Protein backbone atom coordinates (compact mmCIF):
# COMPACT_ATOMS: atom_id res chain seq x y z
CA UNK A 1 0.00 0.00 0.00
CA UNK A 2 2.76 2.41 0.98
CA UNK A 3 4.75 1.53 -2.14
CA UNK A 4 1.80 2.25 -4.41
CA UNK A 5 1.22 5.64 -2.81
CA UNK A 6 4.86 6.56 -3.28
CA UNK A 7 4.79 5.71 -6.97
CA UNK A 8 1.56 7.58 -7.55
CA UNK A 9 2.48 10.77 -5.72
CA UNK A 10 5.95 11.09 -7.15
CA UNK A 11 5.08 12.53 -10.59
CA UNK A 12 2.46 14.84 -9.04
CA UNK A 13 5.05 17.00 -7.28
CA UNK A 14 4.85 20.46 -8.86
CA UNK A 15 7.04 23.48 -8.54
CA UNK A 16 5.60 25.77 -5.86
CA UNK A 17 3.59 28.54 -7.52
CA UNK A 18 4.36 32.10 -6.38
CA UNK A 19 0.69 32.51 -5.39
CA UNK A 20 0.65 29.29 -3.37
CA UNK A 21 0.56 31.10 -0.01
CA UNK A 22 -2.94 32.36 -0.90
CA UNK A 23 -4.35 28.87 -0.55
CA UNK A 24 -3.04 28.42 2.99
CA UNK A 25 -5.39 31.06 4.42
CA UNK A 26 -9.07 30.31 4.92
CA UNK A 27 -11.22 31.12 1.85
CA UNK A 28 -13.50 33.11 4.18
CA UNK A 29 -10.62 35.50 4.78
CA UNK A 30 -10.42 36.25 1.05
CA UNK A 31 -14.18 36.74 0.84
CA UNK A 32 -13.88 39.28 3.62
CA UNK A 33 -11.02 41.11 1.90
CA UNK A 34 -12.99 41.30 -1.36
CA UNK A 35 -16.06 42.65 0.46
CA UNK A 36 -13.95 45.31 2.20
CA UNK A 37 -12.44 46.41 -1.11
CA UNK A 38 -15.91 46.61 -2.68
CA UNK A 39 -17.08 48.65 0.32
CA UNK A 40 -14.15 51.04 0.03
CA UNK A 41 -14.64 51.48 -3.73
CA UNK A 42 -18.41 51.94 -3.61
CA UNK A 43 -18.15 54.58 -0.88
CA UNK A 44 -15.68 56.56 -2.99
CA UNK A 45 -17.64 56.13 -6.23
CA UNK A 46 -21.08 57.01 -4.82
CA UNK A 47 -19.72 59.82 -2.60
CA UNK A 48 -21.82 58.68 0.41
CA UNK A 49 -21.26 61.19 3.22
CA UNK A 50 -19.00 59.92 6.04
CA UNK A 51 -21.77 60.36 8.65
CA UNK A 52 -23.85 57.78 6.71
CA UNK A 53 -21.22 55.20 5.78
CA UNK A 54 -17.50 55.68 6.34
CA UNK A 55 -15.04 53.67 4.21
CA UNK A 56 -13.03 50.90 5.92
CA UNK A 57 -9.82 52.93 5.71
CA UNK A 58 -11.44 55.76 7.70
CA UNK A 59 -12.58 53.26 10.33
CA UNK A 60 -9.04 51.90 10.64
CA UNK A 61 -7.69 55.43 11.01
CA UNK A 62 -10.29 56.17 13.68
CA UNK A 63 -9.39 52.98 15.52
CA UNK A 64 -5.72 53.95 15.61
CA UNK A 65 -6.44 57.50 16.73
CA UNK A 66 -8.98 56.46 19.38
CA UNK A 67 -7.14 53.25 20.42
CA UNK A 68 -6.47 54.06 24.12
CA UNK A 69 -10.14 55.00 24.76
CA UNK A 70 -11.34 51.95 22.85
CA UNK A 71 -9.11 49.74 24.98
CA UNK A 72 -10.26 51.40 28.20
CA UNK A 73 -13.96 51.10 27.36
CA UNK A 74 -13.40 47.65 25.94
CA UNK A 75 -11.87 46.64 29.25
CA UNK A 76 -14.97 47.90 31.07
CA UNK A 77 -17.29 45.92 28.79
CA UNK A 78 -15.10 42.83 28.98
CA UNK A 79 -15.10 42.90 32.80
CA UNK A 80 -18.92 43.09 32.81
CA UNK A 81 -19.03 40.15 30.40
CA UNK A 82 -16.59 38.04 32.40
CA UNK A 83 -18.08 38.72 35.83
CA UNK A 84 -21.61 38.08 34.52
CA UNK A 85 -20.49 34.91 32.74
CA UNK A 86 -18.81 33.62 35.88
CA UNK A 87 -21.96 34.29 37.91
CA UNK A 88 -24.00 32.47 35.27
CA UNK A 89 -21.84 29.39 35.75
CA UNK A 90 -21.97 29.68 39.54
CA UNK A 91 -25.78 29.93 39.41
CA UNK A 92 -26.49 27.75 36.39
CA UNK A 93 -24.49 24.58 37.07
CA UNK A 94 -25.56 24.08 40.71
CA UNK A 95 -29.15 24.80 39.68
CA UNK A 96 -28.85 22.14 36.97
CA UNK A 97 -27.51 19.67 39.54
CA UNK A 98 -30.43 20.45 41.84
CA UNK A 99 -32.93 20.00 39.00
CA UNK A 100 -31.29 16.71 38.00
CA UNK A 101 -31.24 15.21 41.47
CA UNK A 102 -34.46 16.56 42.98
CA UNK A 103 -37.77 15.63 41.43
CA UNK A 104 -39.40 18.43 43.47
CA UNK A 105 -36.93 21.02 42.18
CA UNK A 106 -37.40 19.78 38.65
CA UNK A 107 -41.14 20.25 38.85
CA UNK A 108 -41.05 23.46 40.91
CA UNK A 109 -38.20 25.37 39.26
CA UNK A 110 -37.53 24.03 35.77
CA UNK A 111 -40.83 25.10 34.13
CA UNK A 112 -40.44 28.60 35.53
CA UNK A 113 -36.90 28.92 34.22
CA UNK A 114 -38.08 27.82 30.78
CA UNK A 115 -41.15 30.09 30.84
CA UNK A 116 -39.09 33.05 32.05
CA UNK A 117 -37.23 32.93 28.76
CA UNK A 118 -40.24 34.38 26.98
CA UNK A 119 -39.68 37.64 28.90
CA UNK A 120 -37.63 39.95 26.70
CA UNK A 121 -34.65 40.72 28.92
CA UNK A 122 -33.92 43.92 27.02
CA UNK A 123 -37.38 45.17 28.00
CA UNK A 124 -36.72 44.74 31.72
CA UNK A 125 -33.31 46.36 31.52
CA UNK A 126 -34.66 49.88 32.35
CA UNK A 127 -36.35 48.40 35.40
CA UNK A 128 -33.03 46.97 36.56
CA UNK A 129 -31.46 50.38 36.15
CA UNK A 130 -34.11 51.80 38.44
CA UNK A 131 -33.42 49.11 41.03
CA UNK A 132 -29.65 48.85 40.89
CA UNK A 133 -28.54 52.29 39.66
CA UNK A 134 -26.12 52.95 36.84
CA UNK A 135 -23.08 51.10 38.13
CA UNK A 136 -21.70 47.65 37.44
CA UNK A 137 -24.50 45.72 39.18
CA UNK A 138 -27.34 46.10 36.62
CA UNK A 139 -24.97 45.20 33.78
CA UNK A 140 -23.95 42.00 35.51
CA UNK A 141 -27.58 41.19 36.30
CA UNK A 142 -28.54 41.55 32.63
CA UNK A 143 -25.57 39.48 31.48
CA UNK A 144 -26.53 36.75 33.96
CA UNK A 145 -30.20 36.85 32.93
CA UNK A 146 -29.25 36.34 29.30
CA UNK A 147 -26.45 33.81 29.64
CA UNK A 148 -27.44 31.51 32.50
CA UNK A 149 -30.34 29.93 30.62
CA UNK A 150 -28.33 27.97 28.01
CA UNK A 151 -25.95 26.90 30.78
CA UNK A 152 -28.78 25.50 32.93
CA UNK A 153 -30.61 23.80 30.07
CA UNK A 154 -27.51 22.18 28.58
CA UNK A 155 -26.21 21.10 31.98
CA UNK A 156 -29.54 19.47 32.85
CA UNK A 157 -29.61 17.63 29.52
CA UNK A 158 -25.98 16.58 30.02
CA UNK A 159 -26.44 15.37 33.59
CA UNK A 160 -29.44 13.34 32.48
CA UNK A 161 -27.55 11.88 29.52
CA UNK A 162 -26.11 9.00 31.57
CA UNK A 163 -27.84 5.82 30.42
CA UNK A 164 -29.71 3.60 32.86
CA UNK A 165 -27.09 0.92 32.26
CA UNK A 166 -24.30 3.30 33.20
CA UNK A 167 -25.98 4.11 36.50
CA UNK A 168 -26.68 0.40 37.12
CA UNK A 169 -23.01 -0.29 36.42
CA UNK A 170 -22.00 2.32 39.01
CA UNK A 171 -24.36 0.73 41.52
CA UNK A 172 -23.06 -2.75 40.82
CA UNK A 173 -19.55 -1.51 41.64
CA UNK A 174 -20.87 -0.16 44.92
CA UNK A 175 -20.34 3.48 43.93
CA UNK A 176 -21.57 6.12 46.36
CA UNK A 177 -23.83 8.95 45.19
CA UNK A 178 -20.84 11.26 45.18
CA UNK A 179 -18.71 8.83 43.14
CA UNK A 180 -21.56 8.32 40.68
CA UNK A 181 -21.81 12.07 40.19
CA UNK A 182 -18.10 12.77 40.02
CA UNK A 183 -16.90 9.79 38.00
CA UNK A 184 -19.91 9.01 35.78
CA UNK A 185 -22.50 11.77 35.48
CA UNK A 186 -20.35 14.89 35.43
CA UNK A 187 -17.82 13.74 32.79
CA UNK A 188 -20.75 12.52 30.68
CA UNK A 189 -22.32 16.00 31.02
CA UNK A 190 -19.19 18.04 30.22
CA UNK A 191 -19.60 18.20 26.42
CA UNK A 192 -23.18 19.41 26.94
CA UNK A 193 -22.12 21.95 29.56
CA UNK A 194 -19.52 23.32 27.16
CA UNK A 195 -22.12 23.67 24.41
CA UNK A 196 -24.10 25.79 26.88
CA UNK A 197 -21.03 27.84 27.83
CA UNK A 198 -20.28 28.61 24.20
CA UNK A 199 -23.82 29.87 23.63
CA UNK A 200 -23.51 31.88 26.85
CA UNK A 201 -20.34 33.66 25.66
CA UNK A 202 -22.23 35.19 22.74
CA UNK A 203 -25.23 36.10 24.87
CA UNK A 204 -23.18 37.64 27.67
CA UNK A 205 -21.47 40.06 25.24
CA UNK A 206 -24.88 41.07 23.88
CA UNK A 207 -26.16 41.50 27.45
CA UNK A 208 -23.30 43.78 28.49
CA UNK A 209 -23.59 46.04 25.42
CA UNK A 210 -27.38 46.31 25.69
CA UNK A 211 -27.08 47.20 29.38
CA UNK A 212 -24.62 49.95 28.49
CA UNK A 213 -27.00 51.29 25.83
CA UNK A 214 -29.65 51.85 28.44
CA UNK A 215 -27.63 53.52 31.13
CA UNK A 216 -23.88 53.86 31.43
CA UNK A 217 -21.09 56.40 31.45
CA UNK A 218 -18.41 54.05 30.14
CA UNK A 219 -18.03 50.87 28.13
CA UNK A 220 -18.29 50.18 24.41
CA UNK A 221 -22.10 50.31 24.42
CA UNK A 222 -21.79 53.80 25.88
CA UNK A 223 -19.22 54.73 23.17
CA UNK A 224 -21.74 53.65 20.52
CA UNK A 225 -24.66 55.68 21.94
CA UNK A 226 -22.55 58.82 22.53
CA UNK A 227 -20.89 58.64 19.08
CA UNK A 228 -24.30 58.09 17.51
CA UNK A 229 -25.75 61.23 19.07
CA UNK A 230 -22.88 63.25 17.59
CA UNK A 231 -23.14 61.50 14.16
CA UNK A 232 -19.67 59.99 14.60
CA UNK A 233 -20.52 56.85 12.64
CA UNK A 234 -16.86 56.06 12.11
CA UNK A 235 -16.29 55.75 15.85
CA UNK A 236 -19.42 53.61 16.16
CA UNK A 237 -17.95 51.20 13.63
CA UNK A 238 -14.66 51.19 15.52
CA UNK A 239 -16.50 50.25 18.73
CA UNK A 240 -18.51 47.54 16.93
CA UNK A 241 -15.29 45.98 15.65
CA UNK A 242 -13.81 45.88 19.14
CA UNK A 243 -17.04 44.32 20.52
CA UNK A 244 -16.93 41.64 17.82
CA UNK A 245 -13.29 40.98 18.60
CA UNK A 246 -14.13 40.54 22.30
CA UNK A 247 -16.93 38.10 21.40
CA UNK A 248 -14.75 36.07 19.07
CA UNK A 249 -11.79 35.88 21.44
CA UNK A 250 -14.05 34.91 24.33
CA UNK A 251 -15.67 32.16 22.27
CA UNK A 252 -12.28 30.93 21.07
CA UNK A 253 -10.99 30.87 24.66
CA UNK A 254 -13.90 28.70 25.83
CA UNK A 255 -13.43 26.44 22.83
CA UNK A 256 -9.73 26.04 23.67
CA UNK A 257 -10.68 25.23 27.27
CA UNK A 258 -13.16 22.65 25.96
CA UNK A 259 -10.48 20.96 23.89
CA UNK A 260 -8.37 20.77 27.04
CA UNK A 261 -11.13 19.56 29.42
CA UNK A 262 -13.10 17.33 27.01
CA UNK A 263 -10.35 15.93 24.77
CA UNK A 264 -12.32 12.76 24.02
CA UNK A 265 -14.86 14.77 22.01
CA UNK A 266 -12.31 16.93 20.24
CA UNK A 267 -10.30 14.50 18.12
CA UNK A 268 -12.42 11.93 16.36
CA UNK A 269 -10.25 9.00 15.33
CA UNK A 270 -11.91 5.73 14.48
CA UNK A 271 -10.00 2.47 14.31
CA UNK A 272 -11.36 -0.91 13.42
CA UNK A 273 -10.35 -4.43 14.26
Amino acid at each position, binding site marked *: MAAITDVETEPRVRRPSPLRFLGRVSPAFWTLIILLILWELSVHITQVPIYILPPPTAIVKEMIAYWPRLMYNGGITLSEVLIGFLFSILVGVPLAILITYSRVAERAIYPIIVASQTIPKVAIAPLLMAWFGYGLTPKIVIVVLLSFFPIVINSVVGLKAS*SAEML*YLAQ*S*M*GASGWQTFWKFRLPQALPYIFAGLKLATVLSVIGAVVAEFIGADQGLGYVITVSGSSFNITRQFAAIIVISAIGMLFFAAIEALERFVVPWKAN*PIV*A*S*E
Partner: protein
Amino acid sequence: MNDMSLNLEAASSVKPHIRISRVSKTFKTRKGDVHALDDIDLNIKRGEFVSILGPSGCGKSTLMMLLAGLTPYSKGRIEVGEKLIQGPNPEGGIVFQQDVLLEWRTALQNIMMQAEIRKLPIEAAKARARELLEMVSLGDFENAYPKELSGGMRQRVSICRALLHRPPLLLMDEPFGALDAMTRDQLQLDLLRLCRDNEMTVMFITHSIAEAVFLSDRVVVMSPRPGRVERIIDIDLPRPRRLAMREEPQFTAYTRELTEIFKTLGVFREEV
Protein backbone atom coordinates in the same frame (compact mmCIF):
# COMPACT_ATOMS: atom_id res chain seq x y z
CA MET B 1 -35.12 -36.00 58.50
CA ASN B 2 -33.09 -34.12 61.10
CA ASP B 3 -30.00 -36.02 60.14
CA MET B 4 -30.44 -35.07 56.53
CA SER B 5 -30.60 -31.32 57.19
CA LEU B 6 -27.58 -31.54 59.49
CA ASN B 7 -25.63 -33.31 56.77
CA LEU B 8 -26.59 -30.68 54.25
CA GLU B 9 -25.40 -27.89 56.49
CA ALA B 10 -22.15 -29.63 57.27
CA ALA B 11 -21.36 -30.05 53.61
CA SER B 12 -21.49 -26.33 52.87
CA SER B 13 -19.40 -26.72 49.72
CA VAL B 14 -22.31 -28.63 48.24
CA LYS B 15 -24.64 -25.77 49.05
CA PRO B 16 -25.60 -23.97 45.86
CA HIS B 17 -23.89 -20.65 45.17
CA ILE B 18 -27.15 -19.06 44.09
CA ARG B 19 -30.52 -19.96 45.53
CA ILE B 20 -33.60 -18.45 43.99
CA SER B 21 -36.71 -19.64 45.80
CA ARG B 22 -40.28 -18.86 44.75
CA VAL B 23 -39.33 -15.46 43.35
CA SER B 24 -41.91 -13.32 41.61
CA LYS B 25 -41.60 -9.87 40.15
CA THR B 26 -44.51 -7.60 39.35
CA PHE B 27 -44.06 -4.21 37.74
CA LYS B 28 -46.68 -1.64 38.58
CA THR B 29 -47.64 0.42 35.56
CA ARG B 30 -50.47 2.81 34.80
CA LYS B 31 -52.24 0.10 32.84
CA GLY B 32 -52.07 -2.23 35.84
CA ASP B 33 -49.66 -4.85 37.10
CA VAL B 34 -47.32 -6.65 34.74
CA HIS B 35 -46.16 -10.07 35.94
CA ALA B 36 -42.60 -10.27 34.64
CA LEU B 37 -41.54 -13.33 36.62
CA ASP B 38 -43.72 -15.89 38.31
CA ASP B 39 -42.61 -18.31 40.98
CA ILE B 40 -39.01 -18.86 39.89
CA ASP B 41 -37.09 -21.67 41.59
CA LEU B 42 -33.47 -22.10 40.59
CA ASN B 43 -30.26 -23.21 42.25
CA ILE B 44 -26.88 -22.66 40.66
CA LYS B 45 -23.74 -24.45 41.81
CA ARG B 46 -20.47 -22.67 42.44
CA GLY B 47 -18.43 -22.49 39.24
CA GLU B 48 -21.35 -23.45 37.05
CA PHE B 49 -22.10 -21.75 33.72
CA VAL B 50 -25.86 -21.37 33.42
CA SER B 51 -27.66 -19.78 30.49
CA ILE B 52 -31.12 -18.34 30.83
CA LEU B 53 -32.73 -18.88 27.44
CA GLY B 54 -36.02 -17.42 26.31
CA PRO B 55 -37.78 -15.16 23.84
CA SER B 56 -37.86 -11.43 24.41
CA GLY B 57 -40.31 -10.42 27.08
CA CYS B 58 -39.89 -13.56 29.17
CA GLY B 59 -38.31 -11.61 32.01
CA LYS B 60 -34.84 -13.10 31.69
CA SER B 61 -33.15 -9.72 31.92
CA THR B 62 -35.32 -8.91 34.92
CA LEU B 63 -34.10 -12.09 36.58
CA MET B 64 -30.51 -10.93 36.15
CA MET B 65 -31.34 -7.49 37.55
CA LEU B 66 -32.91 -9.13 40.61
CA LEU B 67 -29.82 -11.26 41.10
CA ALA B 68 -27.58 -8.18 40.87
CA GLY B 69 -29.80 -6.51 43.44
CA LEU B 70 -30.45 -3.64 41.04
CA THR B 71 -34.21 -4.24 40.97
CA PRO B 72 -36.16 -5.32 44.06
CA TYR B 73 -38.20 -8.52 43.79
CA SER B 74 -41.81 -8.72 44.86
CA LYS B 75 -41.93 -12.15 46.45
CA GLY B 76 -39.59 -14.98 47.45
CA ARG B 77 -35.92 -15.15 48.38
CA ILE B 78 -32.66 -14.75 46.51
CA GLU B 79 -29.43 -15.78 48.18
CA VAL B 80 -25.98 -15.43 46.68
CA GLY B 81 -23.37 -17.21 48.76
CA GLU B 82 -24.34 -16.55 52.36
CA LYS B 83 -26.00 -13.25 51.51
CA LEU B 84 -29.69 -12.50 51.11
CA ILE B 85 -30.02 -10.07 48.20
CA GLN B 86 -31.78 -6.92 49.37
CA GLY B 87 -29.93 -4.19 47.49
CA PRO B 88 -27.10 -3.76 44.97
CA ASN B 89 -24.70 -6.64 45.37
CA PRO B 90 -21.23 -5.32 44.59
CA GLU B 91 -19.63 -8.75 44.85
CA GLY B 92 -20.60 -9.64 41.29
CA GLY B 93 -19.41 -8.49 37.93
CA ILE B 94 -21.93 -7.34 35.37
CA VAL B 95 -21.94 -7.04 31.58
CA PHE B 96 -24.81 -5.51 29.64
CA GLN B 97 -25.76 -5.79 25.97
CA GLN B 98 -24.39 -2.27 25.54
CA ASP B 99 -20.74 -2.12 26.51
CA VAL B 100 -21.33 1.03 28.65
CA LEU B 101 -17.72 2.12 28.30
CA LEU B 102 -17.00 5.65 29.47
CA GLU B 103 -15.99 7.66 26.41
CA TRP B 104 -13.58 9.82 28.39
CA ARG B 105 -11.48 6.92 29.60
CA THR B 106 -9.06 4.67 27.76
CA ALA B 107 -9.61 0.92 27.72
CA LEU B 108 -7.30 0.50 30.71
CA GLN B 109 -8.85 3.42 32.61
CA ASN B 110 -12.32 2.01 31.98
CA ILE B 111 -11.29 -1.27 33.56
CA MET B 112 -9.56 0.58 36.39
CA MET B 113 -12.80 2.36 37.27
CA GLN B 114 -13.70 -0.88 39.04
CA ALA B 115 -10.56 -0.57 41.18
CA GLU B 116 -11.09 3.13 41.90
CA ILE B 117 -14.65 2.68 43.13
CA ARG B 118 -13.79 -0.42 45.14
CA LYS B 119 -10.57 1.13 46.47
CA LEU B 120 -8.46 -1.83 45.37
CA PRO B 121 -4.65 -1.49 45.47
CA ILE B 122 -3.96 0.40 42.23
CA GLU B 123 -0.73 -1.21 41.05
CA ALA B 124 -1.94 -4.78 41.54
CA ALA B 125 -5.24 -3.92 39.85
CA LYS B 126 -3.41 -2.38 36.90
CA ALA B 127 -1.34 -5.52 36.45
CA ARG B 128 -4.51 -7.60 36.59
CA ALA B 129 -6.24 -5.28 34.07
CA ARG B 130 -3.34 -5.62 31.62
CA GLU B 131 -3.38 -9.38 32.08
CA LEU B 132 -7.12 -9.46 31.29
CA LEU B 133 -6.66 -7.28 28.19
CA GLU B 134 -3.90 -9.63 27.09
CA MET B 135 -6.24 -12.61 27.55
CA VAL B 136 -8.77 -11.12 25.12
CA SER B 137 -6.03 -10.07 22.65
CA LEU B 138 -6.33 -6.37 23.41
CA GLY B 139 -2.86 -6.01 24.94
CA ASP B 140 -1.92 -3.32 22.42
CA PHE B 141 -5.08 -1.29 22.98
CA GLU B 142 -4.87 -0.35 26.66
CA ASN B 143 -4.45 3.33 25.77
CA ALA B 144 -7.15 3.40 23.09
CA TYR B 145 -10.33 5.38 23.71
CA PRO B 146 -13.65 3.54 23.23
CA LYS B 147 -14.48 5.43 20.02
CA GLU B 148 -11.25 4.09 18.54
CA LEU B 149 -12.40 0.50 19.14
CA SER B 150 -14.82 -1.70 17.21
CA GLY B 151 -17.98 -3.07 18.81
CA GLY B 152 -16.40 -6.44 19.58
CA MET B 153 -13.31 -4.84 21.09
CA ARG B 154 -15.45 -2.56 23.23
CA GLN B 155 -17.49 -5.44 24.59
CA ARG B 156 -14.29 -7.33 25.42
CA VAL B 157 -13.07 -4.34 27.43
CA SER B 158 -16.37 -4.27 29.28
CA ILE B 159 -15.99 -7.97 30.14
CA CYS B 160 -12.47 -7.28 31.44
CA ARG B 161 -13.90 -4.49 33.58
CA ALA B 162 -16.47 -6.88 35.05
CA LEU B 163 -13.73 -9.38 35.94
CA LEU B 164 -11.12 -7.04 37.42
CA HIS B 165 -12.04 -7.65 41.06
CA ARG B 166 -12.21 -11.44 40.56
CA PRO B 167 -15.96 -11.62 41.21
CA PRO B 168 -17.25 -15.01 42.33
CA LEU B 169 -20.33 -14.33 40.16
CA LEU B 170 -20.48 -12.96 36.63
CA LEU B 171 -23.83 -11.72 35.32
CA MET B 172 -24.19 -11.17 31.59
CA ASP B 173 -27.27 -9.77 29.90
CA GLU B 174 -27.18 -10.67 26.19
CA PRO B 175 -23.59 -9.42 26.04
CA PHE B 176 -23.07 -10.48 22.42
CA GLY B 177 -26.53 -9.56 21.16
CA ALA B 178 -25.39 -6.44 19.35
CA LEU B 179 -22.41 -8.04 17.61
CA ASP B 180 -22.08 -9.57 14.16
CA ALA B 181 -22.00 -13.38 13.93
CA MET B 182 -18.25 -13.80 13.50
CA THR B 183 -17.29 -11.38 16.27
CA ARG B 184 -19.83 -13.18 18.39
CA ASP B 185 -18.12 -16.54 17.83
CA GLN B 186 -14.76 -15.09 18.81
CA LEU B 187 -16.15 -13.47 21.96
CA GLN B 188 -17.78 -16.72 23.00
CA LEU B 189 -14.37 -18.39 22.78
CA ASP B 190 -12.78 -15.50 24.70
CA LEU B 191 -15.42 -15.82 27.40
CA LEU B 192 -14.89 -19.56 27.74
CA ARG B 193 -11.15 -19.00 28.13
CA LEU B 194 -11.76 -16.35 30.80
CA CYS B 195 -14.10 -18.72 32.62
CA ARG B 196 -11.48 -21.46 32.57
CA ASP B 197 -8.82 -19.14 34.07
CA ASN B 198 -11.08 -17.39 36.61
CA GLU B 199 -12.99 -19.47 39.12
CA MET B 200 -16.53 -18.13 38.94
CA THR B 201 -20.20 -18.81 38.54
CA VAL B 202 -21.73 -17.36 35.37
CA MET B 203 -25.33 -16.49 34.67
CA PHE B 204 -25.65 -15.76 30.98
CA ILE B 205 -28.84 -14.29 29.52
CA THR B 206 -29.41 -15.01 25.84
CA HIS B 207 -32.05 -15.60 23.21
CA SER B 208 -29.73 -17.64 21.03
CA ILE B 209 -30.25 -21.39 21.36
CA ALA B 210 -26.86 -22.26 19.82
CA GLU B 211 -25.05 -19.76 22.04
CA ALA B 212 -26.67 -21.17 25.18
CA VAL B 213 -25.73 -24.75 24.27
CA PHE B 214 -22.21 -23.83 23.21
CA LEU B 215 -21.32 -22.01 26.42
CA SER B 216 -23.27 -23.63 29.21
CA ASP B 217 -23.25 -26.44 31.71
CA ARG B 218 -27.00 -26.01 32.06
CA VAL B 219 -29.63 -24.18 30.05
CA VAL B 220 -32.69 -22.81 31.81
CA VAL B 221 -35.60 -22.46 29.39
CA MET B 222 -38.01 -19.66 30.23
CA SER B 223 -41.57 -19.40 28.97
CA PRO B 224 -42.92 -16.03 27.88
CA ARG B 225 -45.19 -13.78 29.95
CA PRO B 226 -45.22 -14.29 32.82
CA GLY B 227 -41.68 -15.64 32.89
CA ARG B 228 -41.51 -19.14 34.32
CA VAL B 229 -38.82 -21.79 34.39
CA GLU B 230 -40.12 -24.18 31.77
CA ARG B 231 -37.29 -26.73 31.64
CA ILE B 232 -33.70 -27.11 32.74
CA ILE B 233 -31.39 -29.03 30.42
CA ASP B 234 -27.94 -30.31 31.31
CA ILE B 235 -25.45 -29.81 28.49
CA ASP B 236 -23.14 -32.76 28.62
CA LEU B 237 -20.51 -31.67 26.11
CA PRO B 238 -16.76 -31.90 26.80
CA ARG B 239 -14.69 -28.83 27.62
CA PRO B 240 -12.86 -26.99 26.20
CA ARG B 241 -15.62 -26.32 23.71
CA ARG B 242 -14.54 -25.98 20.08
CA LEU B 243 -16.38 -24.18 17.28
CA ALA B 244 -16.48 -27.41 15.27
CA MET B 245 -18.56 -29.05 18.01
CA ARG B 246 -21.51 -27.04 16.80
CA GLU B 247 -21.77 -29.32 13.78
CA GLU B 248 -21.59 -32.54 15.76
CA PRO B 249 -24.72 -34.65 16.36
CA GLN B 250 -24.48 -34.34 20.17
CA PHE B 251 -24.65 -30.57 19.86
CA THR B 252 -27.42 -30.46 17.29
CA ALA B 253 -29.44 -32.88 19.39
CA TYR B 254 -29.49 -30.25 22.15
CA THR B 255 -30.39 -27.39 19.84
CA ARG B 256 -33.15 -29.50 18.28
CA GLU B 257 -34.54 -30.38 21.69
CA LEU B 258 -34.57 -26.72 22.72
CA THR B 259 -36.18 -25.67 19.44
CA GLU B 260 -38.91 -28.25 20.02
CA ILE B 261 -39.58 -26.87 23.49
CA PHE B 262 -40.01 -23.37 22.11
CA LYS B 263 -42.30 -24.77 19.42
CA THR B 264 -44.56 -26.29 22.02
CA LEU B 265 -44.48 -23.00 23.93
CA GLY B 266 -45.76 -21.25 20.83
CA VAL B 267 -42.63 -19.15 20.41
CA PHE B 268 -42.07 -20.64 16.95
CA ARG B 269 -44.90 -21.28 14.51
CA GLU B 270 -44.16 -23.31 11.38
CA GLU B 271 -46.30 -24.10 8.35
CA VAL B 272 -47.30 -27.77 8.50
